[in-house]
């Protein structure tokens, strides 16, 4: 049995085309497919689809023999865990670009040399926190802070971050997004990677030869440049700074704000910096996952996020100044503990019993909520466990790549469709407005007025 991990998203179409040419004849591996287990016309191969960022981790821990992902994610893993047993087998020629350390075109930093002399801590944000931290140390930045992000990187600088890690096919593409490349961190290209033990111990020559026989292919079309940012909107300390959610929460948030009499121009159409239409109130659209940390460190005064993400943040940082200010009622989910339907337990206590009897060892917990999952495992004395952070599509991890999920669900139908069962409901979560106890005194009155206005719209 040969196990291959393939990426969802950005690299998916080109990877599908590449494998097609290699004669693997994949079915159910097109963009938008809801299957995580495409079938491959290659004897003995088992294929599974992951978020691209999960693939180096899955291959390094030995769940998969081979994987396809961008070299940027491999480098990010190696920046944190240089001993990871991963080998790069072949660059596949598509998905090419660079990962850059970049600043805003409105930032005072024009070059790397400018950064070194900076006295105050520099804020580095992005989806590659370990590469960013390593670059900061190599640059000998005297003092720096790293904010890991789930996405929406380009709306952060210059006000919410000094530097970001950003991926682009070319410096021009980065500039079109309002960013100035200061330092290339690594070359990125789609790459076939292998687990080192599999490489050393397992005969995979048939699969590898068939993949290597396909000539590297260039990108069919360059990535479309992102929409240019509007630099007219104000976002500074004198204005109240609001973070609005993108993703699933965007639509209900638009409706809710409308009920509160706030017609946010450009929010629904995907602007990173929509216009609130109110003097003294500025907004950016970022990921709900990133909001508690961003409010804690003072980059935003208010944010519309979920109680789940607030709780995950507070479990990691109990002394954080972030607090819930208003429950909004929409975006209801349950955060649940989930096992495969095959596992004969119906509660955390029974799961613990299974572990204590040695009928299950080395519990693997896959989750987007790393800190909630960690606390759950501690509180239930689940013995020796490992948390596997994921970046979505977590339900695909059971049963072969994890034993337990901490996941959110509304109806439970997706979980049931994957043959999974809920063994505990940790808590219920809805959207909420969060803020910081440490808000600037001159903004407090304005914040309270806005909260009052929002409270009136809670249905």
């Amino acid at each position: 049995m040969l196990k291959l991990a393939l990426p969802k998203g950005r690299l998916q179409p080109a990877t599908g085309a590449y494998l097609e040419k290699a004669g693997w004849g994949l079915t159910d591996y097109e963009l938008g497919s809801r299957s995580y287990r495409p079938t491959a016309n290659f004897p003995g191969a088992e294929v599974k689809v992951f978020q691209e960022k999960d693939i180096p981790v899955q291959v390094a821990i030995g769940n998969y023999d081979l994987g396809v992902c961008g070299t940027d994610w491999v480098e990010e893993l190696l920046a944190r865990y240089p001993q990871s047993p991963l080998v790069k087998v072949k660059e596949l020629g598509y998905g090419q670009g660079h990962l850059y350390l970049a600043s805003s075109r409105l930032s005072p930093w024009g070059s790397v040399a400018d950064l070194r002399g900076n006295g105050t801590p520099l804020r580095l944000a992005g989806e590659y926190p370990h590469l960013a931290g390593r670059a900061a140390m190599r640059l000998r930045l005297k003092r720096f802070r790293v904010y890991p992000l789930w996405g929406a990187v380009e709306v952060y600088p210059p006000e919410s971050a000094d530097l970001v890690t950003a991926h682009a096919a070319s410096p021009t593409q980065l500039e079109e997004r309002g960013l100035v490349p200061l330092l290339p961190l690594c070359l990125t290209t789609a790459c076939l990677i292998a687990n080192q033990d599999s490489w050393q111990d397992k005969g995979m020559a048939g699969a590898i030869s068939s993949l290597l026989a396909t000539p590297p292919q260039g990108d069919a079309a360059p990535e479309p440049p992102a929409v240019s940012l509007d630099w007219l909107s104000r976002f500074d300390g004198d204005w109240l700074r609001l973070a609005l959610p993108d993703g699933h929460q965007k639509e209900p948030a638009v409706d809710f704000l409308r009920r509160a009499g706030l017609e946010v121009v450009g929010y629904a159409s995907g602007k990173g910096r929509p216009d609130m239409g109110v003097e003294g109130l500025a907004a950016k659209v970022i990921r709900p996952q990133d909001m508690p940390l961003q409010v804690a460190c003072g980059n935003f005064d208010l944010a519309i996020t979920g109680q789940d993400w607030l709780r995950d943040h507070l479990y990691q940082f109990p002394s954080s100044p972030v607090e819930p200010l208003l429950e909004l009622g929409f975006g209801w989910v349950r955060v649940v503990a989930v096992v495969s339907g095959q596992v004969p337990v119906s509660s955390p206590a029974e799961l613990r019993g299974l572990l204590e009897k040695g009928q299950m060892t080395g519990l693997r917990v896959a989750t987007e909520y790393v800190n909630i999952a960690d606390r759950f495992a501690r509180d239930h004395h689940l013995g020796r466990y490992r948390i596997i952070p994921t970046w979505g599509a977590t339900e695909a991890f059971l049963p072969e790549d994890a034993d337990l999920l901490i996941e959110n669900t509304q109806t439970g139908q997706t979980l049931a469709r994957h043959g999974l069962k809920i063994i505990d409901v940790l808590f219920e979560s809805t959207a909420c407005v969060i803020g910081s106890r440490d808000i600037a005194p001159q903004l407090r009155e304005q914040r309270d007025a806005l909260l009052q206005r929002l409270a009136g719209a809670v249905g």
Partner: protein
Amino acid sequence: MDKCRGMRDLLPQDMRQFRYVEDLFRERCLQWGYQEIRTPLLEYLHLFTAAGTLTPDMLNRVYSFLDWDGWSGERVVLRPDSTIPAARLFITELAQRPTARLFYVQSVLSFEATGTESRERWQAGVEVMGGRPPQAEVELVALAREMLEALGLKPEVRLGHMGLLRSLLEEVGVKEEEEVDRLTAQEGLLWERLRDSRPELGEALSLARLGGRSPGFLENLGSVLLPHLPGLRPTLEEFSAIAGLLTSVGCPYTVDLGLGRGFEYYTGVVFQFYCGEVRVGGGGRYDNLIPLLGGKALPATGFAIYLDRVMALTATPTTSLPVQVQAAEGCWPRAFSLAGELRAQGFAAELATGGPAGGPGPPGASVMVEDGPIFVLSGRGRFTSAAELVRALREGGDAEVSPA
């Protein structure tokens, strides 16, 4: 059940040895007028990231993470070095003092990839904040030698000069610390680079590479180097003064100009202590560190002894075993009281409440408390009073605990 990879347990015999070395180190430091400190295990990462502190290679091996209140995004680090925290402590806690002589015994942590060597290493270090050359260097070298010799070792002292090395490398355009580190990491690389860049220095470099054992060597070197590199004069003169004073106080050494690898904060003379092929300690002058961390301009120098390596080279000290006190049925109250009496008399006494503890070497004396009152000292007779028993133990020459 296994322990964390790269971590080391210190067993009872290791701790006996550890305390033996540590006690001797502490005693000598106190005699020389140093005061003991201990810095926290956690420090902010930014203390170590500025240029002039740790090299990027060392920074890539620190244990850093976000603390429970790390929402600001700034990481903390498990102490990777002791000199920088000692300088921080001096600035934050002792800034009113013009100078300070400090010592510590604590561990430092850094990642080591194979997991076969310990990632936690113990150091016994001293720092002289405000010490000037040549006296401070000579004091430190003499102190380190005295300690190592008291442990029965024959230390060899090697001297280099980080300022001289940097000046030489700057002459050939090498300024980046990573490059300095790379060139000094491997014997020969540094000289090759210098010779390639400045062929006219060829013979002088060959002579420099020979090393020396006296201030005369440094003066000889000056005579061939200074015509080409007049900027080296103050550094060479400082180095000669230190070497001269060491010779005057009867301390042998070798000069190795390639020495100086390790820490970016060294600015002047660096020294290393060897026992055979094993480097058991090292240190040097770091005049820029205190101002770099935000303190006043103050010269400073220090060294650390690597305890794990020294422990492996020194003989295990003999220690007395405790007297084991056992009791017949109903005699335990008197056993407790006898054990107390023995301790008051300077013996270690162990109540055999769960059977003997066991351990390496022959067992110590054993007393059975019986009705009567009778104390049976195994193999040596029966006594009717604790005083008689104590006398017999003393005469037997065993088991007396002498804490000093």
